[in-house]
């Protein structure tokens, strides 16, 4: 049995742990051999450093969680898959890591691969090389949390943490056929998450099924005095939302999400999902989110503006990579020129421009105003509807290298996920089908601020009435 432990879900393993049928070490060794076997192909994890680090940072207890490389782990490399943070070892744990340890679980001894500083939708922008999609190794796993999603999909991890700024949890979850949740902004502490865009970033779970997503949310959610943007509201027991009857649930289908650019196969799968939910008594109605077309441009102004400031601190003075130069200004220039990858540089330049004197009002300020309009679109819909249902991404996973030289095309793969970040609302992606080439398709469910429970109820009802979450890639 031990050999197959890696293929189980966290709630199944939890059961066995509680019955003393297995030990935490059994899960770890099962995962380690699985990683050893598969990761040379998938590249979901960063190479382990040659010299093991001292300290007790990675004592194995409970069910280990795979952690994205932009979440600080005390005493263990956290490098955002960027050369500029090469060798950076945080002296502290992110709040989510503390919470995982306090819950009796632990972190895996590997960090998961990602697009550098979470800049990307394909996990190709990593100093550690691209992660491959376990369903088809010539395809991308999505991004930026592609390492976490691919690890869970290939059974190299039981469950994982990602971060989502514009879809970086949901889109790779969709591409890899797993469950990814972006919580409400302020639900999970950002303390210790290396910031991309502070007003959009949220940490969230990537799991094999809805149950595990709820379990991990129970652990990581809650107010944190160290994060002034976290909200002081009680955390419900999310597993209690599972199995709730969804009959009479009112769900909106935004017409702006079913337009040109949506792959017909994806569209068909989502429509099929709507039909199966309808059979469970869910009421659907077409709705409009009027400002949807502005979401991508607004996002790329706000997110890059914040990123340009957040990434300023990587200057070679205190930590990470420093290029050798005697002159201060040249040291800054060379360090940042050599330390950041292409996409990081592109976004820093974009954001710097948007904030510059003479352009601020036309770009940044206007983007903030449109962001408010987008949020208001959702607010008014949620007065009437419990949830909104959309495809997670316009297509299934694309080929490695396909969009790498066309940033605009790449940016459009987040077109359905970005709005939730701008509005601060929660959203989940769960598997709802396969393309004729056998690639997973994701269904996105959005809800009002702090109504993750409604998402869980609806998603669980769908999952329990379909078989999609049980499919596994044939890697071996």
């Amino acid at each position, binding site marked *: 049995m031990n050999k197959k432990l890696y293929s189980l879900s966290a709630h199944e393993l939890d059961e066995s742990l509680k019955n003393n049928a297995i030990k935490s070490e059994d899960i770890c060794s099962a995962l380690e051999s699985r990683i050893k076997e598969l990761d040379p192909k998938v590249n979901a994890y960063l190479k382990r450093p040659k010299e093991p680090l001292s300290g007790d940072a990675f004592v194995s207890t409970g069910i280990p969680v795979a952690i994205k490389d932009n979440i600080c782990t005390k005493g263990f490399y956290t490098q955002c898959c960027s050369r500029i943070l090469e060798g950076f070892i945080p002296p502290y744990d992110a709040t989510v890591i503390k919470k995982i340890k306090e819950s009796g679980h632990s972190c895996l001894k590997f960090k998961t691969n990602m697009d550098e500083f979470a800049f990307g939708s394909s996990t190709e922008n990593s100093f550690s090389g691209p992660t491959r999609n376990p369903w088809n190794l010539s395809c991308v796993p999505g991004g930026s949390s592609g390492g976490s999603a691919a690890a869970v999909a290939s059974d190299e991890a039981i469950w994982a943490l990602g971060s989502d700024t514009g879809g970086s949890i949901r889109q790779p979850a969709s591409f890899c056929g797993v469950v990814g949740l972006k919580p409400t902004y302020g639900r999970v502490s950002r303390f210790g998450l290396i*910031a991309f865009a502070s007003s959009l970033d949220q940490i969230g779970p990537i799991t094999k099924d809805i149950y595990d997503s709820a379990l991990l949310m129970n652990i990581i959610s809650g107010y944190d005095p160290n994060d002034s943007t976290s909200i002081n509201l009680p955390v419900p027991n999310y597993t209690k939302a599972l199995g709730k009857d969804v009959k009479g649930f009112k769900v909106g289908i935004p017409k702006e999400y079913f337009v040109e650019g949506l792959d017909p196969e994806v569209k068909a799968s989502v429509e099929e999902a709507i039909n199966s939910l309808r059979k469970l008594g869910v009421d659907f109605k077409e709705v409009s989110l009027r400002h949807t077309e502005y979401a991508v441009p607004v996002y790329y102004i706000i997110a890059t503006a914040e990123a*340009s400031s957040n990434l300023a601190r990587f200057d070679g003075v205190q930590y990470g990579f420093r290029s050798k130069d005697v002159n201060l200004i040249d040291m800054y220039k060379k360090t940042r020129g050599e330390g950041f990858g292409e996409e990081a540089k592109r976004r820093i330049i974009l954001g710097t421009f948007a904030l510059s004197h003479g352009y601020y009002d036309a770009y940044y300020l206007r983007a903030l105003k449109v962001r408010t309009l987008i949020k208001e679109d959702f607010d008014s819909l949620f007065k009437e509807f419990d949830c909104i249902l959309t495809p997670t991404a316009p297509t299934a996973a694309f080929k490695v290298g396909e969009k790498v030289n066309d940033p605009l095309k790449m940016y459009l793969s987040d077109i359905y996920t970005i709005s939730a970040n701008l509005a601060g609302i929660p959203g989940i992606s769960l598997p709802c089908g396969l393309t004729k080439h056998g690639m997973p398709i994701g269904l996105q469910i959005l809800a009002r601020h702090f109504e993750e429970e409604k998402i869980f109820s609806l998603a669980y009802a769908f999952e329990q009435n379909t078989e999609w979450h049980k499919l596994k890639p044939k890697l071996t």
Partner: protein
Amino acid sequence: MPKYEAVIGLEVHLHLSTRTKAFCGCSTEFGKEANSQTCPVCLGLPGSLPVFNRTVLDYAIKVALALNCKVQEYTKFDRKNYFYPDLPKDYQISQYDLPLSLDGFLNIDTDAGLKRIGITRVHMEEDAGKLIHEDNASLVDFNRTGVPLLEIVSQPDISSPEEAYQYLSALKTVIEYLDVSDCDMEKGSLRCDANISLRLQGESSLGVKTELKNMNSFKGVKDALGYEIKRQSELLELGEILMQETRLWDVKELKTVSMRTKEGAKDYRYFPEPDLPPFIITALKIEEIRRAIPELPHEKIRRFVEFYGLLESDAKVLASSRKDALFAEECFNSYPGKDKKPIVNWFIGPLLAEANNRNLSISGLNISSAHLLELLGFLSRNEISNLAAKAVLSDMIDTAKSPEEIIKSKNLIQISDGGALKEIMEEVISENQKSVADYKSGKENALMFLVGQLMRKSQGKANPKIAKELLKERLNA
């Protein structure tokens, strides 16, 4: 009247003396080992987030109200972006378009009377670290990073270096009364930059401005402004066109040197700090803080004049230091009787003289009100002379002993006893027969000479009043 008029505005940065930093729990204590008072937040380590220390807000509101500013209901922090090695995040958390408070004023004394200097804004921000330059390297000490600062920007209402000095002194006094900063320029807890431009007298448009930096004392500010007025008027006289620039005060050479011109001006790319939500300051909060503001210098001066009968000029001297004023009032109140003149005079006279001689403040003399009152008791009972009392005061400051102890050990009690005085008097008369004769022939002055002789013979201990009476009686007999 000089040909040109100076237009000066001052920008003061003030360390608030909160126990911990503005956005983390590190201590703000000055002079600790380099980088010993740091944490991931003030070091700007990746992933760390700021949490606002609410005491900073209370202190800042206090200052804003004392400077007659309007505290804004809705305020927020912004990021000011620039690269510098003493700035670990490469942005400073500051306030830009919605500062804490706007539109106040501070009154200063000038030769022409009271002058109102407008205050544009008072806002909150964090301090940067400190660079230490060595031969082959520069080191950074981040202990100061994140210490809360207030930026206090004046209107360009200041017209002379002297007024600038007065403004800074008045500002420092108010801040000291509020007890929110130690205002020590040498420790860097108060820093001042100045903007100055010249224009022809009577002109209403502004000239080209120069920003002055690097002054490390109030006198430095005054000297740098004086130098700039001279430099700029000389250039204007030569018909040159001035450039907008930033200049540094060189305290050794006593001159300003150019640092950068306007072309090098920075774009700080301000935008709202996304890690700190904006906040609302309620009217209730403002009232609560307003009530906690102590009596301010100008109020104290008025009360000292009205209640204790001080001259306004004397009241100003006492009120220029909160501690002095508190000590003075403690003494005034415990001084018996309705007429406070004797003790007031002692403050303005001997006490202030001692303080000035020793380069200390009156409260810095470290004498207790009880001892001072005891000393004045001896004086009012005519047990010691005024001269002796001053000597006793000096000893009290040196030794911290009680006046009684000093008077006893030095045997300074006045001889008021007629019997004892008569003996000395007879000696004086027999030794100064000429003066006795002069007096008797009508020369009144001779009497005072004889009193003086008597005082000398008694080593100053004779009560001069009684001695004079006795002599008069004896010689007129």
